């Protein structure tokens, strides 16, 4: 008569929330129990430090200076951080001594940001990213198991989202084996939707900022837009959200000129959030103009085109050429028949980052991720 719902395998979705449910499934069965409370006071549980040390599985960021060349490098307890581990049958992830409580989690995140991600001596940044990405994932895992929510949860997720947004811009164009934009996107979306869920209750200092970032990162998404329209009045009418909505409106109306002009007003992190859409916005502009200005006798000045594309002249000319638009000295000639969709391999998004680059100026990465920019 009483068939337990917990014995049924839970649906597996790769979309946001799916991974959280996967990691949650062990604790589902104890649904009626109180959530586990961690007692580990260090960034990495001592048992794990010893284990990884013995198995030579320390990351070189975690190794005690001077022992790197040893057969078994020693761990620097102040720099070892708990790694992400896949949930598996028989593995107990709820041992209190191995779980870090929220205040330790926040300290861990701050260490990862200030002492690893923002540390200029750590190169290459792809390696920094891999390490921080994994350790942040483990932080989220601890939060899921302990069912952390509210402002403590938001503080961690906000920094995570800022980090992943920054990474999506900084590592854009890197070879796939070093950085995978799809994986970054999955985790970014997951963290972002979890964060927005946290915001649904209570007051949060940075809510305006992140609602706007979500709208920019998810430019044109009906779901993100509908969510924004349903926000409380004060949040919806805050300037970051209004700007993000205006950009979305320009996108929906198919007015890339307006979109790119509004993009000038974004701050650095907002520009990072938007940046992956810039290439297609520019392409769209060229497509529309190819049809709208299609005439053999007409010429369009490259300088003007470069201005509205927010690109340098030479790059604008290159972009035109990859789309089959005829460049003639200082002018282009648009023709609806010659526009081609497929961009050539050479011209990548990464070459056209100036719009975003210029906004960084002398902001420190640390300040950007902590939100003190």
């Amino acid at each position, binding site marked *: 008569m009483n068939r337990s719902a917990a014995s049924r395998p839970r649906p597996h979705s790769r979309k946001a929330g799916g991974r959280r449910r996967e990691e949650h499934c062990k604790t589902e069965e104890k649904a009626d129990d109180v959530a586990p409370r961690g007692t580990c006071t260090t960034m990495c549980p001592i048992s794990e430090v010893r284990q990884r040390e013995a198995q030579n599985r320390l990351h070189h960021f975690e190794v005690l200076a001077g022992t790197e060349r040893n057969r078994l490098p020693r761990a620097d307890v102040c720099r070892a951080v708990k790694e992400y581990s896949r949930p598996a049958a028989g593995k107990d992830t709820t041992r209190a001594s191995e779980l870090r409580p929220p205040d330790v989690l926040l300290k861990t995140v701050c260490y990862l940001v200030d002492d690893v991600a923002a540390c200029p001596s750590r190169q290459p940044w792809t390696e920094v990213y891999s390490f921080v990405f994994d350790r942040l994932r483990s932080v989220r895992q601890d939060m899921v198991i302990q069912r952390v929510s509210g402002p403590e949860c938001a503080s961690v997720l906000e920094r995570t989202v800022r980090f992943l947004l920054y990474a999506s811009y900084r590592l854009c164009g890197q070879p796939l084996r070093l950085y995978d934009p799809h994986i970054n996107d999955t985790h970014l979306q997951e963290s972002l939707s979890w964060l927005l869920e946290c915001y649904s209750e209570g007051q949060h200092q940075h809510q305006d900022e992140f609602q706007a970032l979500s709208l920019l990162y998810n430019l044109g998404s*009906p779901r993100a837009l509908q969510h924004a329209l349903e926000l409380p009045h004060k949040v919806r009418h805050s300037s970051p959200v209004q700007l993000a909505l205006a950009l979305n409106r320009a996108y929906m109306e198919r007015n890339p000129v307006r979109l790119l002009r509004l993009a000038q007003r974004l701050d650095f992190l907002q520009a990072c959030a938007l940046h992956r859409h810039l290439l297609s916005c520019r392409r769209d502009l060229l497509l529309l*103009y190819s049809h709208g200005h299609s005439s053999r006798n007409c010429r369009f000045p490259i300088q003007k085109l470069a201005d509205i594309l927010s690109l340098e002249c030479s790059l604008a000319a290159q972009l035109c050429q990859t789309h089959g638009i005829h460049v003639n000295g200082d002018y282009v000639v648009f023709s609806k028949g010659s526009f081609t969709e497929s961009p050539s391999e050479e011209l990548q998004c990464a070459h056209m980052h100036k719009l975003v680059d210029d906004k960084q100026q002398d902001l420190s990465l640390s300040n950007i991720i902590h939100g003190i920019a």
Partner: protein
Amino acid sequence: GAQILLLRYTSLFSQVLEAIDTRDGVFCAELLSFKHPHVANPRLQLSSPEDKCQQVLEPPYDEMVAAHLRCTYAVANHDFVEAYKSFQAHKEENWCSHCLRGQAEQQLQKKGKGKVGDMLEKAAEQLMSCFRVCASDNRAGIDDSKKWGMLFLINQLFKIYFKINKLHLCKPLIRAIDSSNLKDDYSMAQRVTYKYYVGRKAMFDSNFKLAEEYLSFSFQHSHRSCQRNKRLILIYLLPVKMLLGHMPTTQLLKKYDLMQFTDVTKAVSEGNLLLLNEALAKHETFFIRCGIFLILEKLKIITYRNLFKKVYLLLKTHQLPLDAFLVALKMMQVEEVDIDEVQCILANLIYMGHIKGYISHQHQKLVVSKQNPFPPLSSVS
């Protein structure tokens, strides 16, 4: 169905037995549904009816009726969560979980426990397994086939998917019906509901011609007396028709109490961007709640087209200075618009086929075709 006074649960049992013997599925379903008045009878509300059921009825009916009775008890005590749980244990047979689920949601929301979305997703899983049972029923003859249950279940699933905003899950269900040979033989009520949801999905996919077809069908065939349903369908049909260039009459809007659309309609047909923005702002809450705000914003493009056509008709020339359009936009109090943006808006209209012509940047002019430069809206898109 006939009103039956069920004084004791034994009467319920004999009624169920009789229904089973005479294979009266409809009546049986009624007896086990919540729409039947017997559920209010306190003597039928038992918290542990299993033993009694097992004495009288054979499996699986004993479990079904027991679950139903547990439910009535739980509902009577306003414990909808418990009531829903009893239904969950009998996914194969229970088709009436819908209203119960809705009430369970409400209660959970009030208690703050868990999330409505999760409950709905669970309900959807239950319904999906019922659906699969029906869809794979190749054994029985057409009259007895469980396939008749498919459309009902699909409509329930659609309702949930729309609520939790997971429209992509509708696709396999639509495919199932499209490939079914029963699709035109279901009851009109079910088909109306089906087309309503499929129409809304087409809207979401920006497939406006298809959306118009489905929603029109739904509107025309929904029962004359059901004003509420017709109004609901119209809320979605109107924006689609407007995007295709067909404006509703004030008479229609009055009849169905949809005056929120009057200003929008007027603004679009006159090319009055200012009025459009005002109208959208004024009834924002209503439009957002119905989920049509974003679609209505698409009407801006049609409005630009209508406005620019007026400029063309006024100037009576085929070589129109771009400045004229800029002036028109500024008169409509469009914020921060410049000549570059005007070019972009025009380029888009040309690309979409709303204007036949080209822009000359050097001469700062829009040169339009001498023949039919602004084709009728219904012939475009």
